[in-house]
């Protein structure tokens, strides 16, 4: 299929299409991932603000919003959630063993919410740092929230995986359909070609049996009709040939008989002619002597004629001289 000119064009088209689709897919995927990342950040930033307000409002009563902190930290995107004092000591953390430990981070004394890329335990994360102003005289505490982008990566992998699977399925389906339909078209054609070869080899009684219900069946029918016509013509021709042969045989016989009688006549006539020839020879021999005498006579005649002519021209000159003389 790929050897033909059409095949080459088709293949190029397919490659270009796949390339274009691939690029388009990557661009769109990246766009949606960026958008989803932004949504995750906005959503969790909002949660951080909620926590901040709850901490600030509960602090004077000595109560910490542990339920809210747990709810937020239980969110699948949250890798860690720490409430950190200005000196870096973790006051609360989603993991018990981190409480009371010391953390180092450039955003510890931040005065406004900040978002930055970091890695934590070898995982790429987004860090949201938001100040908590609970003690007016002191520097603010800070909420550090590490957001995993695993869900995005998972979604990305799933999308790519699904797309590839879908592409393969579509390709397989289209190939199957193309194969099925091409087989439906080419199989009858192949059968027809084979049948025509048989018919072409001289078997005009052979008929093709194609039942596709479409133009191919009509074509096969036409071929059958043609073969039938050819077969009929051939039979007629053969019949004519036979008649002709019979006729030729009869005529030949006639001619042979005629020939025989003619030969006999020729022989008889030859004998007669021989006899006449013999007579003629005898006559010839007789006439030859006469001819020789004739030739001698002719020569004598010629001589006489020449003398006569000479006499006539002398007479003419005499008359001319006489006329001139008379004039």
């Amino acid at each position, binding site marked *: 299929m790929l050897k033909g000119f059409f095949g080459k064009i088709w293949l190029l088209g397919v490659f270009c299409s796949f390339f274009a689709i691939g690029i388009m897919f990557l661009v769109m*995927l990246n766009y949606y991932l960026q958008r989803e990342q932004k949504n995750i950040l906005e959503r969790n930033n909002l949660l951080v603000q909620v926590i901040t307000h709850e901490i600030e409002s509960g602090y004077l009563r000595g109560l910490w919003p*542990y339920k809210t902190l747990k709810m937020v930290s239980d969110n699948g995107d949250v890798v860690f959630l720490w409430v950190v004092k200005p000196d870096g000591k973790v*006051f609360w953390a989603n993991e*018990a063993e981190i409480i009371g430990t010391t953390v180092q981070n450039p955003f510890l004394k931040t005065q406004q919410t900040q978002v930055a890329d970091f890695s934590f335990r070898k995982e790429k994360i987004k860090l949201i740092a938001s100040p908590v102003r609970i003690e007016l005289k002191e520097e603010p505490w800070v909420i550090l929230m590490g957001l995993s982008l695993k869900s995005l990566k998972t979604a990305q992998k799933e999308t790519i995986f699904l797309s590839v699977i879908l592409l393969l399925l579509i390709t397989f389906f289209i190939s199957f359909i193309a194969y099925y339909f091409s087989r439906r078209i080419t199989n009858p054609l192949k059968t027809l070609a084979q049948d025509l070869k048989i018919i072409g080899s001289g078997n005009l009684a052979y008929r093709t049996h194609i039942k596709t219900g479409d133009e191919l069946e009509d074509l096969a029918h036409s071929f059958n009709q043609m073969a039938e016509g050819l077969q009929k013509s051939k039979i007629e021709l053969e019949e004519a040939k036979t008649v002709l042969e019979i006729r030729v045989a009869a005529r030949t016989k006639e001619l042979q008989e005629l020939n025989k009688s003619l030969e006999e006549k020729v022989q008889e006539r030859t004998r007669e002619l021989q006899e006449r020839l013999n007579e003629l020879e005898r006559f010839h021999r007789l006439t030859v002597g006469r001819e020789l005498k004739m030739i001698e006579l002719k020569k004598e005649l010629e001589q006489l004629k020449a003398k006569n002519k000479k006499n006539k021209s002398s007479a003419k000159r005499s008359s001319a001289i006489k006329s001139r003389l008379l004039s």
Partner: protein
Amino acid sequence: MEKKIIIAIVFIVLLVGGGAWYFFHRSHLPEIVAPTSVAPTQQTESVAGAGWSTSTDETQAVQEAVNMMLGKMKKTPDFAFVFCASKYNEEKVLAELQRLLPQTKILGGNSGYGVTTPGGYFWYPLFSQSISILGIATDRIIWGVGIAPSEGLDSKATAKQALLSAIENAGKDVKEKPALVINMPTFDMTQEETLEAVGELLGPDVPVFGAYAADQGIKGDWRIFTNERIYSHGVVMAVVYTDLKIGFYKEHGFEVTETGGTITKADGKKLIEINNRPAAEVYNELIGGLLTEEVKNPTTTSSSYLTKVRVTSALNPLARVIKKPGQEPFYAPAMVVYILPDRSLQLDIAVQEGDELKILRGDWEILLNRMQTTAQKAMETFAIQKEKILFALDSFCCATNFAIPQSERPKEAQLLKQAIGGEFVGICACGIQCFDPQRKTNTYSSLSNGILIFSEP
């Protein structure tokens, strides 16, 4: 032609792959420095040291805990609190303690589901067994320990015997009031009566801090012990004579609702009727039918049933209202230990006919907050500075502990550690006795959190 196709495919793959790499790969990012805990370097002697172990072998557990404690203190303690989960064989525990710490006075007992220490939260189901020891060595405290079995005696008499024994152990006289009495009766004792015993012998102004010894599930397999004896039913007490600053506080943290009733029939810790109706039915109605099925089919054998009843009562406790003229009412929450077949309620506080009851309400956030607020309130009340705290003893109700999500429970230890900073041990006990500085009296209530802090003046 075929070669060209291969080259084209490779080209496209490289191009698309390169594009994908560009889109999804990021360059190296700065690493967040993981939080680190800096272990304090203790080169000098310390007044107190806590040790712990989660080994299931009694001998090994005691050795590990004692060695850890001695490693912090650098000397043998005069006195030690020893609390262990009830699955241990206390005889073996005590035998090893006597071997390792022959000169140390010990106040010990079962700590229900586990212990809390600066090293973490070692409670069931995270740890099947755990032991903690808090050793104290200072000449600024004189300790006396006493223990008495309840054989043939009521709770008050038993407590008096234990207290007198402790005073004698301290080499003191009843007339010399100790700075503090530490009280640990077994669960079956009437805790209020033990407080009365202290009041009658030493006066109502002597502060008492204590909690009952209980096993896992309150099945009767509990023990109390000193360095000499072990009892299943009785009272162990320690008297403290010191010039150090002592702070204590107990709180439940619940919100008081307007819902309640009046006790019309009671027998000790058994609440039979409220408003002339079976107590369990009334209680269930008051808390919005949260225990309907349990009230219909009471049992004392199913652990899941008992957990449901106790945790529900830990979030919606019945509280006895104690009013005194000129004072704010005191609410003594009670844990519903069982629902009995006659629809009465087995509580862990004593109640009387005519007592007013209120329904309190809380959630796990309030309960977890207590780990810090109780300590902070003790420090505020007694003007204790965190930096000067020497050691502390905490008692956290196990029913309220189990009302907290399992993922949050380990934070209890860290929050307490953060609040007080020093060495401490925490026990699992619901009924807590503590002196109320406002009311100038010792009170007992359940479902609470209590803390005792010793600090430099």
